[in-house]
């Protein structure tokens, strides 16, 4: 999936392994995608599919035991893999901003809001304390924190979850990054707060023209936010394309099963919900064929023999040899 023109981000054949005590997990196994300027790409999948590992590897923040084994990550044309830590640090927080699920753990509890939001400016732009503070107030206003200058001297624990997520966003945006990585940014929030943060994210994206990688398990959030969607299963992309097309002309059996297992407002209470039997596979074991085959109602012997290649047209690809019929 390489978009036309200059991409902000190009990820090519990325492989990440995580060494555990007794085994090595291939958390990300040959993933390629790109993000164009001003584009929001949704990366969806269930726990353990590798979506967060991709986000962390973009920032060089893999956990202990995690290793980027192969592949390339280019940000605005510059190769990030193999960069020494000091150079990576220059990229992080300056060219790439990140927002995590839980703002209470990602914000520093001992630093005031003003110091946190201003910190990237002092580190990356050499801003003076005074300049950083006044820019911090502007950023807090941008993310819709009420009475921004009053908030500068407060601490994270004094704010609500939604307000803290606004502060994380302000920090991530401080240096006007080319790419924002948002990993489950609204999962810890209540629905009405989630609605407000998603609205803010969409508005900031169009105002600042940055690219966004939105990592989430929530197909509903992707539907409303992403221009394109990447569906992951067991360390690999299984379907990718424009959000409209993937939702309206779903091809991969996993994507289909995932969408069908979500109760809709129209699902009758007398019918049983669709569900996917079994569980995702152990990523420490080798795979012969399609990773979803053991749980797939449409799998045949053929699915187990070789990994299915990408098929489909540019703009919507999938790895399934018994895909959903393309209705239109």
């Amino acid at each position, binding site marked *: 999936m390489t978009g036309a023109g200059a991409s902000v981000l190009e990820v090519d054949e990325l492989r990440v392994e995580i060494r555990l005590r007794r085994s090595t997990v291939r958390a990300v196994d040959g993933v390629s995608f790109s993000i164009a300027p001003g584009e929001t790409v949704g990366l969806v999948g*269930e*726990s353990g599919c590798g979506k967060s590992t991709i986000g962390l590897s973009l920032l060089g923040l893999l956990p202990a035991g995690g290793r980027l084994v192969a592949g390339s990550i280019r940000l605005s044309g510059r190769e990030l893999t193999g960069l020494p830590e000091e150079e990576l640090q220059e990229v992080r927080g300056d060219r790439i901003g990140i927002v995590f699920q839980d703002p209470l753990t990602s914000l520093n509890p001992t630093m005031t809001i003003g110091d946190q939001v201003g910190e990237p400016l002092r580190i990356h732009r050499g801003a003076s304390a005074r300049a950083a503070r006044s820019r911090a107030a502007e950023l807090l206003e941008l993310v819709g924190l009420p009475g921004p200058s009053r908030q500068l001297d407060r601490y994270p624990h004094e704010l*609500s*979850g*939604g*307000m803290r997520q606004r502060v994380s966003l302000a920090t991530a945006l401080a240096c006007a990054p080319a790419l924002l990585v948002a990993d489950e940014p609204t999962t810890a929030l*209540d*629905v*009405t*707060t*989630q*609605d*407000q943060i*998603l*609205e803010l994210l969409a508005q900031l994206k169009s105002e600042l023209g940055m690219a966004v990688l939105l990592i989430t*398990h*929530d*197909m*509903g*959030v*992707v*539907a*409303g*936010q992403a221009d394109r969607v990447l569906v992951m299963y067991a360390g690999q992309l299984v379907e990718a394309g424009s*959000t*409209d097309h993937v*939702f*309206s002309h779903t091809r991969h059996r996993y994507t289909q*099963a*995932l*969408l069908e*297992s*979500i*109760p*809709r*407002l129209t*699902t009758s*209470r007398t019918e*049983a*919900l*669709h*569900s*996917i*039997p079994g*569980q995702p596979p152990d990523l420490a074991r080798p795979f012969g064929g399609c990773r979803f085959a053991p749980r797939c109602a449409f799998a045949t012997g053929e699915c187990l023999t070789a990994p299915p290649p990408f098929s489909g047209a540019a703009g919507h690809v999938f790895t399934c040899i018994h895909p959903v019929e393309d209705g239109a």
Partner: protein
Amino acid sequence: MTDAPPMVELRDVVKEFPITSRVLQRRLAAVHAVSGVSLSVPAGSTFGLVGESGCGKTTIGKMIVGLERPTRGSIHFDGRDVWTLSRSERRRLRRDRQLVFQDPYASLDPRMRVGSIVREPLVINRMGSREQQRATVLRLLEEVGLPADAAARYPHEFSGGQRQRIGLARALALSPRLIVADEPVSALDVSIRSQVLNLMRDLQRRHALTYLVISHDLTVVRYLSDLLGVMYLGKLVEVGETETVYARAAHPYTAALVATIPIPDPAHERAKPRRTIRGEPPSATDPPPGCRFHTRCPRAGEICRSVEPPLRAFGPQHLAACHFPLQEPA
């Protein structure tokens, strides 16, 4: 089903948690977790309770199973006022009301084998011989779809969905009549979530269970529930048959909750109005006067700031507390 006699009834229940100062040895303030809630759960039905963090829904669940005592008001189980009963009678009633927790990772003792976890309620209540208890455990494990060898294994060997099955098997051990499920599938992945929801429905039919399902997720609650109650900051703001509340929400808060659920449909998501309600819920230590929702309500008028709206009927079994409702009162 919804005209069956109530299995559980709450009458004007209030629960306050005092905030005390150790140093000054006195009460400083109180968290008004539940402020005068009346509701009734018909036998054999599922009552869904929704609302955002801190609205008091979990406290109501705890009071219904007897883990918390109401500060004021009464709780009736199968027609009996629970807190006027003797200790031993209350203890016996506890068996009839079981709780299933949200987090299957935190609610099972990691050092106990699954067989002992499921058997423990039988041991504590001295029900049956060892042999009978073992047989019950195997029957329960089979019923919730776990292999028989699960009994000899530890919780960490199971996935989230399987752990929630263990939690359900344990809750069923004493043959309860009511199960309170607090966010039963919130910690689970979508594909696993539907397996557990289907199981809960099957168990209800097989055991004629009454459910109180507590969740912030309206799609889950709607799928399971006959009746739906919407809470905001310690108050029940709307209640009625699930379909009615969804289709004809009278309270602006209910309507906003229904409207903000992200739906996996790009066209629908792009077309929907955003930010129908502003800000975040105020603190439960100092709830706003009048209607508690007025600080965030798009329809609030002068009266909402001072006069608390009573619950009014909008149809059979459909009540809502709003001065400027979205529907005509009945």
